[in-house]
């Protein structure tokens, strides 16, 4: 980023937005509407605990265990909860399986709907006008922005998250990973591969 606004100690450097957020937190705390300690926990949760490593564990388990994979595709919420993840912005999960014939890609054209319990908070590009506008009309062009080129005859299936249903992509397991542990496999699972704008890493390091 061009700017780092994290120098709160210098009051004179605060932007109007920083001042406004500070004013709001002061007012809301004084009125007893919010507890700053609860805000700290919310922030810590989404900065440190809930992120795409959660989804990667789910994907690695599905790659390793055919029964788990079937459960995940059929009834995602209990299957994901069995690995320990549930809740806000993931109350109604559907998992979409990529195959050689079909590649799934998820967008929210109207706002920023995203499966928080398994992927954390969405990246800036996911919430940006370029992605929201183009994913539905030019999905192959968007994939090229991510350096992904798929075979010309692969169906590109775009899911616009317009309800409280949240979609998670189950990418294809990379070749050459026979006998790998779930922990090893999880290292190959990228955030973007679970949104559908990327592919898993290949064994040996290539993306």
């Amino acid at each position: 980023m061009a700017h780092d606004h994290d120098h709160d100690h210098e009051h004179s450097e605060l932007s109007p937005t920083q001042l406004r957020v500070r004013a709001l937190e002061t007012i809301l705390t004084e009125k007893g509407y919010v507890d700053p300690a609860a805000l700290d926990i919310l922030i810590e949760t989404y900065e440190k605990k809930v992120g795409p490593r959660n989804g990667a564990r789910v994907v690695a388990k599905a790659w390793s265990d055919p029964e788990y994979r079937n459960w995940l595709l059929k009834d995602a919420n209990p299957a994901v909860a069995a690995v320990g993840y549930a809740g806000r912005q993931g109350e109604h999960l559907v998992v979409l399986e990529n195959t050689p014939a079909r590649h799934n890609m998820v967008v929210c054209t109207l706002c920023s709907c995203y499966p928080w319990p398994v992927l954390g908070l969405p990246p800036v590009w996911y919430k940006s006008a370029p992605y929201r506008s183009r994913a539905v009309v030019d999905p192959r062009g968007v994939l090229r922005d991510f350096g992904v080129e798929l075979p010309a005859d692969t169906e590109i299936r775009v899911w616009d998250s317009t309800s409280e249903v949240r979609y998670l992509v189950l990418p294809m397991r990379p070749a050459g990973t026979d006998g790998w542990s779930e922990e090893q496999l999880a290292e190959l699972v990228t955030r973007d591969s679970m949104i559908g704008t990327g592919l898993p890493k290949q064994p040996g390091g290539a993306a």
Partner: protein
Amino acid sequence: MTDGVHDMGGARGFGKVVPELNEPPFHAAWERRAFALTVAMARPGGWNVDMSRAARESLPPQDYLAKSYYEIWLAGLEKLMAERGLVAADEIEAGHALHPPQPVRGTLTPGDVAQTLYRGTPTAREPTGPARFAVGDRVRARAVSVPTHTRLPRYVRGHAGVVELVHGCHVFPDSSALGAGENPQWLYAVRFSGRELWGTDADPTAQVSVDAWESYLEPA
């Protein structure tokens, strides 16, 4: 509403998608606080997710396009609080509470956070009647322009598709955003071909689905 600037699917001219390598969850200290304030204020504020979305998407279009994501959240939060008399403009100006608090239904306490997040806010409801459509049915998205909150994007309006998934009955956002009750309806994933939506020059391998409540659809 349909046709607002937030209804971006298919809009042209926004350029390339620019991913950021090793992106952090927040890019500034104020974003952390704006995020947490917004999440924490839903309980005392008494609004639901549909009301929050409606507040954000009804910002003046020039503001919506110019603001960053968390600036939009902040503007939406201020709007929801102002409508309910929770915070007054002179208080924001002063940087302190100047008026007595409104009675609220509760505060998010540190001990509540984990359980509140884990529980979430499910929107599925018991069906009140049979589903009108089944997987494989051909349906058409109604050709309507809605002035109040809705979740039917304009790019599918009037187009025909196929029901791919039946998600069950869910709270109806058009009603919930107005405070007019949950009025749950059957919800479907409806798949459209790229050519149906974008014309004969479109990528023949592209298929796009939206989640559509039953009243958004008619038989095709």
